[in-house]
């Protein structure tokens, strides 16, 4: 009698154990998702592959820039607003060429950099240790801007598996469209003592 009681107890324990362990299994998405480091404006966000520091944010309804052939264009009206996120980014170990940037809202709505302009910072090639300063450009409906975060992911060979990712909360920056056109300038390599993002 006590033997079957022990067996029954063991079975119950096993089932409970399995149920508990089940909570620790990761779904596929979590297994492969980028590894995110979060931060805020004005501080370097250091990931395994790069560091990113957001300097400021500008919002406007018109933009002057150069197209992908390098010809000046503009001012181009936004369908909504242009959002320029000025930032400094430094590759840590390897040359980085593919690091897509997104503007992610509180509700998960995500905007990509439009492919029209060659000077957005995500088009740059980053050599290790050489900080580049420029701006990520987005086009967003004004009423959709809600606690936006700039999310930059290192995706070598267009592969985001476990890629280094920096997420910078842009809140509480007040989105206020400027009257003058925003100007998107090409990224510049910044070296010097004032740089603190390459650490």
């Amino acid at each position, binding site marked *: 009698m006590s033997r079957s009681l022990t067996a029954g107890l063991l079975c119950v324990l096993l089932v409970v154990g399995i149920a508990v362990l089940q909570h620790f299994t990761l*779904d*596929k*998405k979590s*297994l*492969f*998702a980028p590894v995110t480091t979060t931060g805020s404006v004005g501080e370097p966000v250091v990931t395994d592959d790069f560091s990113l520091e957001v300097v400021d944010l500008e919002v406007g309804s018109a933009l002057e820039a150069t*197209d*992908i052939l390098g010809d000046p*264009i503009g001012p*181009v*009206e936004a*369908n*909504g607003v242009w959002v320029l996120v000025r930032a400094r980014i430094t590759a840590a170990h390897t040359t980085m060429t593919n690091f897509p940037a997104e503007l992610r809202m509180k*509700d*998960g*709505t*995500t*905007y*990509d950099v*439009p*492919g*029209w302009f060659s000077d957005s910072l995500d088009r740059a090639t980053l050599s290790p240790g050489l900080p580049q300063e420029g701006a990520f450009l987005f*086009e*967003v*409906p004004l009423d*959709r801007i809600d606690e936006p975060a700039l999310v930059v992911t290192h995706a070598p060979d267009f592969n*985001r*598996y476990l890629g280094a990712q920096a997420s910078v909360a842009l809140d509480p920056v007040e989105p206020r469209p400027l009257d003058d056109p925003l100007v998107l300038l090409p990224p510049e390599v910044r070296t010097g003592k004032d740089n603190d993002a390459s650490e």
Partner: protein
Amino acid sequence: MALELRLVVHHVRAADIARRSFLPVDPLARFALVSVVGAAGAIVTLIVAAFGGLDRADSQTSPEPPGTELENELFAVTPYEAWVETGDDGARLQVRADIELRASDVSVPMFEVGSGLVLLLGPSGTSTDRPDVSFERMPESLVASLQPHMAEENAVLSWEMPEDITASDLGEVDLAVHGMQELGTRDGLGSFWISSDDVAGTVTLPLNERGRS
């Protein structure tokens, strides 16, 4: 006084009962009938399957006039006019339309969106999909992807003219918007959209003289 009770038992033969079933009485005949009907059904099913099966009834059979919004599971498009533009790289069929990505909270590549934008050319049944898209405020640049919940007015959808068709053959074109479905990638990190054979709606567009040559 004797009470006489008389019980009359009336025997009825099986053949006299009013027949309620169309099945024959004989079990063997019943079996034969069911077998024959079953076999006939199977043969009909096989013949239908051999000729490609049944088609889904079209939810919308008649094309709509220009300016009608067509919406599928991913985006909405309102085509207004169509014309032929002849440039250095040959003739292109162009359609002016409003377009909006509605059912996705992330951007979707134009290549995936375009699989649901099918242009039907004349009675020959020739069709072409995946247009190049540009916006009025940036006419020289192609749109790589549609951003979520941004209604774009007066976008230009542009298809290369198929080789076997010339502009003079066409009086009008039909823009058919197909259904779309989202498939997850194997790693679970992303997804992509493909079009289905279902047609969400069609607009007939007369070709006008807007084209510059």
